[in-house]
């Protein structure tokens, strides 16, 4: 027995099967292509949306102000403790002096003489603050509640509506895309199964003969499995090429037509998306072909 010879013979039979059932191959490859195109498109959109949400999340923070009698070192201690909370990604401290300098830059830039009247008396003396950035925006509510009960903190400023909306949008987009991708995968597997069943029906006589001469399960079934995998891979390559050009065009379009948005929210570079999309799509294509052909041969070929 030559296993290698058998493997290449069965692989060759897989290609021959495709050639013999050209129409069915085109139909199922096109269906898989359409499904993987949709999956790829969703992935690119969702991946970018998640990236944008993450960027937006990172710019949202909770600001805390301290009781008037607290010294600088006490404030720094509280800030240091908060920085160690598991929900917190980082904290940024603004002292009263820095707050006044910032205020002056923003509001008295054109009339610095107006600010000179406060030279020895910082009007924001009690405005030392910490900006607290969270790892996950959905934890903001619980973090704020904890901050409000923390000793020494006078005031907690947060943007709860934005945080909730971002968190909800992220969750909804995730759920919708999982459901849709699941449905598309199921449809693809169903269609490739039917294509392979048609191939089995067309080659019924050949299968019977193989059975009578003592061919093994592997020998009888593997050409159909190869046929499924090849169909799936070709069905994956086509949408990858199409998506590549669409994504490149969309990136340029966003940069030129929506420069206002892209200034604050950035689109992911081509390779960031395609380094995941290429292996993912090929794996999904081959997987659809493999699962579909295993179902078909398992049901319709009894050696």
């Amino acid at each position: 027995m030559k296993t290698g010879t058998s493997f290449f013979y069965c692989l060759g039979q897989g290609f021959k099967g495709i050639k013999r059932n050209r129409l069915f191959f085109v139909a199922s490859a096109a269906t898989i292509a359409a499904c993987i195109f949709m999956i790829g498109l969703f992935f690119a959109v969702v991946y970018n949306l998640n990236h944008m949400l993450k960027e937006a999340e990172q710019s949202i923070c909770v600001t805390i102000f301290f009781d008037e009698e607290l010294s600088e070192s006490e404030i720094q201690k509280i800030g240091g403790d908060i920085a160690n909370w598991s929900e917190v990604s980082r904290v940024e401290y603004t002292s009263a002096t820095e707050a006044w300098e910032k205020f002056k830059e923003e509001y008295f830039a054109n009339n610095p003489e107006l600010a000179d009247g406060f030279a020895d008396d910082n009007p924001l003396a009690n405005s030392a603050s910490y900006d607290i950035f969270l790892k996950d925006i959905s934890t903001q509510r619980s973090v704020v509640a904890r901050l409000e009960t923390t000793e020494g903190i006078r005031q907690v400023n947060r943007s709860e509506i934005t945080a909730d909306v971002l968190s909800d949008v992220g969750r909804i987009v995730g759920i919708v895309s999982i459901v849709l991708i699941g449905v598309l995968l199921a449809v693809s597997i169903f269609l490739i199964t039917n294509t392979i069943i048609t191939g089995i029906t067309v080659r019924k006589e050949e299968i019977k003969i193989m059975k009578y001469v003592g061919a093994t399960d592997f020998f009888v079934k593997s050409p159909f499995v190869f046929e499924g995998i090849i169909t799936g891979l070709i069905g994956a390559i086509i949408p990858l090429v199409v998506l590549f050009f669409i994504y490149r065009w969309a990136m340029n379009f966003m940069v030129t037509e929506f420069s206002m948005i892209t200034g604050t929210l950035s689109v992911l570079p081509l390779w960031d998306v395609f380094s995941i999309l290429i292996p993912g799509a090929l794996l999904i294509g081959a997987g659809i072909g493999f699962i579909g052909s295993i179902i078909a041969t398992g049901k319709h070929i009894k050696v």
Partner: protein
Amino acid sequence: MIKLDHVTKAYNNSHVKALDDVCLEINEGEFVFIVGDSGAGKSTIFKLLTKELEPSEGEIYIAGQPLSKVRHRRVPALRRQIGVVFQDFRLLEDRNVYDNIAFAQRAISVPASQIKKNVTEMLTLCGISEKYRFLPKQLSGGEQQRVAVARALVNQPKILLADEPTGNLDAENARAIMDLLERINERGTTVVVVTHNQEVVRSMKKRVINIKKGVIVNDIPEGGRLA
């Protein structure tokens, strides 16, 4: 070589027994006809021997091996000991004579160099070497059956089972096929021919097992006189 020990076969949805307590022994190198009318149980024996069906009762032995003990993954190995020929030839229409025969070798992963040698030998034995490039539809019925015989033999089985091999042939071609089967038998292969063609059976003067309604009604030895 083949032994049926009190074999009964009843199909799932029927109380009628296709075979009823059949005991039968065929020795190595024998040439045997199994005859009977339609529905007598001939095809059931054929399917039981290739393990397409399991007996309801009793045991079947091929070369001393009880088939009930043969696991699913060992069935291909069992079938390699048995060559089969059908009434309707069952050739692959899209492949030429050579590829039809070579197909049986490829199915059991014989190396390509060996396939060429074995197929050439079978083409010569079956008298179709000049037509190795022809497609089945370009051949006569007799020639197609020769190709089917060559395909059944190329894997060198110990047993050749032929199910109505002359059913689709005229008298002259039927005779030629039976001569071919006799030559194959002389080379040492056990040949079992299932048929209802009494004329062929009479002319061959071989052992004849007569089945009626699933029961062996008589077993006439080689050279014996048919009723």
